């Protein structure tokens, strides 16, 4: 588990509780800058919760309690003086379930831009188009930009919320199963997008698809029952995992 990289996020002894239930236990993890890190693990092991703790989304849910630290560029994001809104602008997240706003396609993507104070129509048009292109959605919605986003198909919605998140150019992008409702072609496009994005951004993705994790990620973290079991380079992890549990999970012999 040697790691010679710059850590964009440094998770230190992070634990999370929902009411009385411990969901994450003493997680220590460094997320490399300008790389793609994949979280894998069985359902309910805490992948989404860990992702949410990187931009303090957990505290918006009922009755949660976080202990430990997460350093973003060396600064603890749980420090009381951190501006949470600004943090979330820097660390974007795309949820497991697509949640488009009940506005038009255009307004969905422009939403975050408007929050940033961008008002000029021309500039908005350009940024919206470029975000939609990157999310591989432009061709499908260019003629219906002003239709309601809730009428898009599930897969289109998934790409729309990705476009919405990348429009404001976060430094870190957290993607929770971004391709779970996508056909192979769209999936490929999203994977290409991730590949492009990592030149400038740091990406963390959650996936249940082992091939996808192996294909796109540089590093992989395996979680089980709220604990980090193993973290390593993806190549190493998929060819020569050091933990038995990891091997069992990857090869499908888990359980």
């Amino acid at each position, binding site marked *: 588990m040697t790691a010679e990289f710059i850590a964009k996020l440094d998770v230190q002894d992070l634990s999370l509780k929902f009411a009385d239930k411990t969901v994450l236990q003493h997680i220590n993890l460094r997320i490399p800058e300008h790389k793609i890190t994949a979280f894998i693990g069985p359902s309910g092991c805490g992948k989404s919760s860990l992702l949410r703790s990187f931009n303090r*989304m957990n505290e918006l849910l009922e009755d949660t309690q976080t202990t430990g630290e997460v350093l973003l560029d060396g600064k603890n994001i749980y420090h009381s003086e951190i501006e949470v809104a600004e943090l*979330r602008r820097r660390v974007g997240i795309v*949820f497991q379930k697509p*949640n488009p706003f*009940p506005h038009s396609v255009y307004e969905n993507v422009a*939403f*975050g831009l408007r929050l*940033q104070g961008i008002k000029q129509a021309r500039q908005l048009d350009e940024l919206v188009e470029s975000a939609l292109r990157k999310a591989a959605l432009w061709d499908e919605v260019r003629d219906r930009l002003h239709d309601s986003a*809730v009428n898009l198909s599930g897969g289109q919605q998934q790409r729309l919320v990705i476009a919405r998140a990348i429009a*404001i150019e976060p430094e870190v992008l957290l993607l929770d199963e971004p391709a779970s409702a996508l056909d192979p072609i769209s999936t490929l496009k999203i994977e290409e997008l991730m590949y492009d994005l990592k030149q400038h951004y740091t990406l963390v993705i959650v996936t249940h698809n082992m091939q996808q994790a192996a294909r796109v990620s540089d590093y992989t973290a395996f979680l089980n029952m709220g604990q980090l079991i193993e973290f390593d380079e993806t190549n190493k992890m998929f060819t020569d995992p050091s933990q038995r549990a990891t091997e069992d999970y990857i090869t499908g012999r888990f359980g």
Partner: protein
Amino acid sequence: MLRNWFRQGAPWIWLNAGAVAMSLLLVFGLLAFIVVQSIGVFWPSELTGHTGEKLLQYLVNWWQFLSGSSGQAGIFPAILGTVLMVLLMSVLVTPLGVLAAVYLHEYAKEGLLLRLIRVAVHNLAGVPSIVFGVFGLGFFVYYLGGNIDNLFFNDSLPTPTFGTPGLLWVSLTLALLTLPVVIVATEQGLAGIPKNLRLGCFALGATKAEVIWKIVLPQASPAMVTALMLAIARAAGEVAPLVFVGVVKSVSELPLSSDFPYLQLQQKITSLSMHIYDAGLQSPDAQRAEPLVFASALVLITLIFILNLLAYRLRKRLALRYRNRPLPE
């Protein structure tokens, strides 16, 4: 046989259908009764004459009834009074109720205090309206109005300007009366907004205020209109509490003027409900008054119907603009 009949839920269905039929019958019966009673009031009584002429006369009579002042046995001041007091009430109660609901639902911490406040709001809805009238007289008219007079209208004292019943106090009393309805209905609207939408908004770097302003309030706007519809329907029918604070049988001057600020807030008004009460019970000539009472009732119902129709269309527009239908599976 009989057992089967019970097991199929037949009695239940009959009871339900019966209740629906009964309600419909009552509502439409009431409407039909009022229409039948009032429709012929203004038909010219002369036996001779062309039907066309009579029809014209009929319409003219209606128009005179609707537009005439109190002295001419018309109800224009009452219509105007009802519309003004209800509109002014809406202007007062909507922001107040919505702000209170947003505070209670979005900002206040769950706990004993919040529960107490909720109980208080719900109980306020159950307070008999006459109590609001007495409160309005004591607090609004004498206390607030008296102080306003002391501060701004000192010259004209001892003749009170605002320290006497008037339109402003009528609307304020109505606003207070309907406040719980607006708060409760708006809160229900707020509670119905999917958590996901809020999270999505926060995730894009919005502050709490921005989430409320950009997602929560637009999403809750149809519920607010519904709340207002309920409030208006309740307010337009009130008589008793308003007698304390500025509604009178008849007025010599309308609460409107041609120069700024156009609206005479300190003026006493009359309302359709008051007119119905007064003409129906206080008139010395019951024979003649009764049909006019029904005509006024018809006007009141029509007015509320129109207001509701407007609100309904507004709500539909809002719901469409911020529609949040899930995809059909």
